[in-house]
């Protein structure tokens, strides 16, 4: 393990915070995208179109 000096804990905590926040953001965006696509496919499979025919 590399020696980051007496303040290593602050350095690792900073990088861990970046990794955590960005992972949560990426997972949320991927989950949201899949959810929207599933709902869209469900509506399309039921023959629903974007504009009402009436």
């Amino acid at each position, binding site marked *: 393990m590399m020696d980051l000096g007496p303040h290593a804990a*602050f350095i690792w905590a900073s990088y861990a915070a970046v990794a955590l926040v960005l992972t949560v953001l*990426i997972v949320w965006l991927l989950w949201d995208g899949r959810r929207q696509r599933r709902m869209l496919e469900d509506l399309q499979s039921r023959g629903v179109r974007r504009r009402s025919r009436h």
Partner: protein
Amino acid sequence: MKTKDATSQSWTQRLANPTRFMRLSGIVLPWLTAVAVAVIGYGLYLTFFVAPPDYQQGETVKIMFIHVPAAWLAMMGYLIIAISSFGLLVFRHPLADVSAKAAAPIGAAFTLLALITGSLWGKPMWGTYWVWDARLTSVLILFFLYLGLMALRSSLDDEALAAKQTAVLGLAGVVILPIIKFSVDWWNTLHQPASVVKLDGPAIHSSILVPLMVNAVGFSLLFFALHLKAMRNEVLRRRVKAMRMAEVNEAAHNQDAAAATAV
């Protein structure tokens, strides 16, 4: 009446068609993500294996390599919201509100990271996690502005009204950006003055500046990739909503027709 053909349209006008935007962004997104990951990977290699410790701060300078890009992107996120808000209010660009809405949580995340990493850098360097100086306080206000924009939008059911109101707040709030940028010059702050974006050039040695800029480029590319992905999700969400409305209208029409037949 004259209509513009595809060749005489600006690129923003050509992207105004959500279907075209989805097709182009679908092609660009995987490449953008791959380049962002590669550049961030190289930036982290430079950070941990090449960059020397600072003569004053020692190894804690490594926090700067993520703190500064996060702070820049926190401001860029808000600039995207302000430009998008202008695009909505003035040009009524169909994707402007999609862009503004998509940028808010990403900008908020990077602002939060700037605050957390700044705080973790401040403790060993200043002896405190937080001081109410102009730079730190103005960035905290930026974070609250992001939260305010998201809260305002989610409090309104009418999507068109929510778009307009958040655009007005988004545009008015842009005044925070010069305050953040020049806070270290206008007021006495514990936070150091600008050392990279300066009229007389960066005041940082290249051995530290290069890893910083590589990380800044990598995280900027990641920001654009996340923004593109969030915009794509928002376009899909609006399609789902439109189809659900059409489904309800169809059902109501069929019900009316059945009732009329029965009579």
